[in-house]
């Protein structure tokens, strides 16, 4: 091959007058070592380096994908839990409202019952007081009638015992009436 290129590209070295091959001609030894070096690089890299690097990238990709999937699962689970908690919170608030309403209702019932009982007691007291008053009045009237009868009898006795003139009778009657009035007070 060198012969072919040399025939095409042979040049003259102006300095020493000796024919020199063109500097771009391929040297056989350089081709030999290039082949050796490249084949060595290719073989060893293909055997050791590229698979290791490729595997490392694949492993990291798989790990990242697994982590992303796990994170997505955790997010879905968290959203589900949040939804559950919100539902439970809403239920608790409903229960609390219902309990408060029931307590309020119970308190109203108790209040109404107490008021009704108090009113009943008051009415009972009033009835009994009125009854007592009526009985007292009746007793007073009975006492008054009895007293009046006694006084009438006493008065009649006094009238019978004395012969009274008109003025004395009037004074006696008025005295009687005043006595009755003072008795009723």
């Amino acid at each position: 091959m060198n012969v072919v290129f040399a025939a095409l590209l042979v040049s003259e070295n102006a300095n020493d007058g000796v024919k020199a091959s063109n500097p771009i001609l391929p040297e056989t030894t350089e081709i030999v070592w290039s082949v050796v070096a490249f084949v060595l690089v290719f073989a060893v890299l293909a055997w050791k380096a590229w698979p290791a690097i490729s595997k490392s990238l694949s492993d990291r990709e798989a790990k990242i994908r697994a982590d992303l999937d796990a994170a997505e699962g955790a997010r879905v689970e968290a959203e589900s839990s949040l939804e559950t908690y919100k539902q439970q919170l809403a239920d608790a608030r409903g229960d609390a409202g219902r309990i408060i309403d029931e307590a309020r209702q119970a308190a109203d019932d108790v209040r109404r019952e107490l008021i009704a009982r108090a009113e009943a007691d008051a009415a009972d007291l009033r009835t009994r007081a009125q009854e007592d008053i009526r009985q007292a009045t009746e007793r007073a009237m009975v006492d008054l009638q009895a007293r009046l009868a006694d006084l009438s009898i006493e008065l009649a006795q006094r009238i019978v015992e004395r012969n009274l003139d008109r003025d004395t009778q009037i004074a006696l009657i008025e005295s009687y009436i005043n006595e009755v009035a003072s008795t009723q007070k």
Partner: protein
Amino acid sequence: MLLAAFEFPHIDELFRWKGLFFGDTAYEINKTSLLVLISSVMILLIFVGGSRRMRLIPTKLQSILEMTFEFIDHGITRDVVGKDAGRFTPFLGSLFLFILFLNFWEIVPFIQFPPTARFAIPLYLALQTYFIYWYLGFRHNGYRYLTGHLFPAGVPKALYILVTPIELVQIVIVRPFSLAVRLLANMMAGHILLTALALLTAYALENAPIIAIGPFLLNVGVTGFELLVGFLQAYIFTLLTAVYIADSIHPDH
């Protein structure tokens, strides 16, 4: 006037190196071969050593290895060849790293020579790609791989007179030649440019120090640019190899 006395060294001094070991044999090791071998060892040390204990939470080195793998596997192999073409990643990844490490010698102090500026390496890599895509083409498509290129569907038959020779030249000669020459020319040009600027700076320092700042700053800038060129050429070579492989597997696409 000043530059009239400046003598640029003969091109052989920039690219041809004396044998260091095994002199005058087919396996002689010169500077180019030595750098190729050192690059291989460095790649293996970094990638095999770095991938021995892979962790779920990556270290900085592991991150770099993974980014490189992803860059090749997703950015080139699966995007260009196909979603299920992961089996080509080891080859394309090795190719990219091999060229990248060789290119970066251009800007390493005291070395400053990219082995890819020697035709042997781009030629070997291009021929390797060439044989791989022919092999894959015939393996996956039989003779339709060749006939599909030479007689593309949808083209009027009369145009085959033009299209067929062009396609033949393109698939047989242009592809490997352009692949090799593109890498060689870029790295060689960068090496010559950096050398010229460095020599100009040294020459100016001796004769007119005040103007040395110009080529020096330019040299710094071009060194940074060559870093980009080194990466870009490795990427382009690998990408085109992937394109040719994809074309050989799915010629209808």
